[in-house]
């Protein structure tokens, strides 16, 4: 076969088209099988303005929360930093409102057993809220403030602490076995503890393993276990006492927050917990 001009043109065209098609096909599969990636959608928890305020010294006022719409927040295993969680609390439902001076957050989740006491192999149920201190914190701050320059403010409610604080009952038979032991400086005897000022620990962290109790404890909270579910209410002043340590809130503002929940029954404690992605908290 003699190669003529039309043949060369035809070959060139065919090869070019085939190559471009191949590259196009390759580019569409350059990161494996193509799938549609849904845009990031954060769950939103709306904190409506109300003139009401709640007195936690009596109870958690469940009836007052009934009419407020809730936001379901999905939780996943904490499987980034060992030890990883062994049991999963699949979701919590959160509600919130605020008045002129205070913020209230209500969290409920299903838990078949109420774990309010500590012992060998016995751990507390708990829930925590986390707020980045910086308003432009990167999403990786979710790892207890990892990469966030100012870190995170954590409100950690524990069923055992709730019992100790509100019921004035001792929760530990022989030993206190939580990972958190923030009172070292004040310690004179090996198992001395400061008097509790709240059922909620008001904490600071800049990355994993840096969780530290703040000098001033500004968060109140109370929980009740009823018919296989926990109901926990957090309460704090809207304004930050110390802008470097306390998450700041204001009417009309937006703030990222995250949830973590522990099931003592399943052996959760410390990093063994179920965690959420960031949730948008909106003050309206």
């Amino acid at each position, binding site marked *: 076969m003699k190669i003529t001009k039309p043949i060369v043109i035809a070959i060139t065209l065919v090869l070019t088209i085939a190559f471009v098609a191949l590259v196009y096909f390759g580019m569409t599969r350059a990161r*494996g099988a193509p799938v549609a990636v849904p845009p990031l959608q954060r769950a939103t928890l709306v904190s409506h303005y109300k003139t009401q305020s709640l007195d936690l010294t009596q109870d958690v006022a469940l009836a007052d929360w009934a009419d407020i719409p809730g936001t379901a927040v999905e939780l996943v295993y904490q499987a*980034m930093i060992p030890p990883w969680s062994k049991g*999963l609390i699949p979701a919590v439902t959160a509600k919130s409102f605020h008045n002129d001076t205070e913020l209230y957050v209500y969290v409920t989740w299903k838990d078949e057993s109420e774990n309010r006491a500590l012992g060998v192999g016995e751990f507390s149920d708990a829930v925590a809220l986390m707020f980045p201190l910086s308003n432009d914190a990167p999403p*990786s701050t979710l790892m207890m403030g990892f990469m966030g320059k100012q870190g995170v403010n954590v409100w950690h409610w524990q069923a055992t602490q709730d019992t100790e604080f509100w019921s004035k009952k001792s929760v530990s038979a022989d030993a206190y076995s939580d990972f958190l032991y923030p009172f070292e400086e004040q310690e004179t005897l090996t198992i001395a503890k400061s008097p509790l000022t709240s059922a909620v620990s008001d904490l600071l962290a800049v990355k994993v393993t840096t969780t530290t109790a703040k000098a001033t404890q500004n968060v109140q909270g109370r929980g009740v276990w009823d018919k296989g579910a926990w109901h926990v209410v957090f309460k704090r002043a809207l304004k930050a006492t110390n802008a470097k340590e306390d998450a700041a809130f204001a009417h009309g503002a937006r703030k990222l927050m995250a949830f973590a929940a522990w099931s003592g029954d399943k052996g959760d404690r410390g990093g063994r917990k179920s965690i959420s992605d960031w949730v948008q908290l909106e003050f309206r």
Partner: protein
Amino acid sequence: MKIKNEPIAVAMLILGTIVAIIGILGFENYRRSAEYTAELTARATEYGNWYPNTITIPYGKPAKILIRNIDVVSHGFALPDFQIAVMEIKAGESAVIEFTPDKKGVFPFVCTIWCSNRHMEMRGQLVVE
């Protein structure tokens, strides 16, 4: 008899190009279906997440799952309900997990490394039936 070299050369050329490509792709296809119960591709959420997002394996039979990280960052694999994990699969590497599922149901698996801003969404489901 004089050996005819021309057809040998042409045969070698075809063998080294078209046959090689078809052979390699065909062999790999066969190898994967024969060797593994399921195959999983790890990519950050932005680039497609775990693929496929749901994998199904039979109950009670030994499972062998190939996990390929085709991304440019590290990922990890954790299947907490079966206490199975690969702490880190570096970019471009692959890992194989083997276990025998002893319960039926839908179980989540997650990435274990902060791989991107949407790391928390990097999860999938293992169905045992």
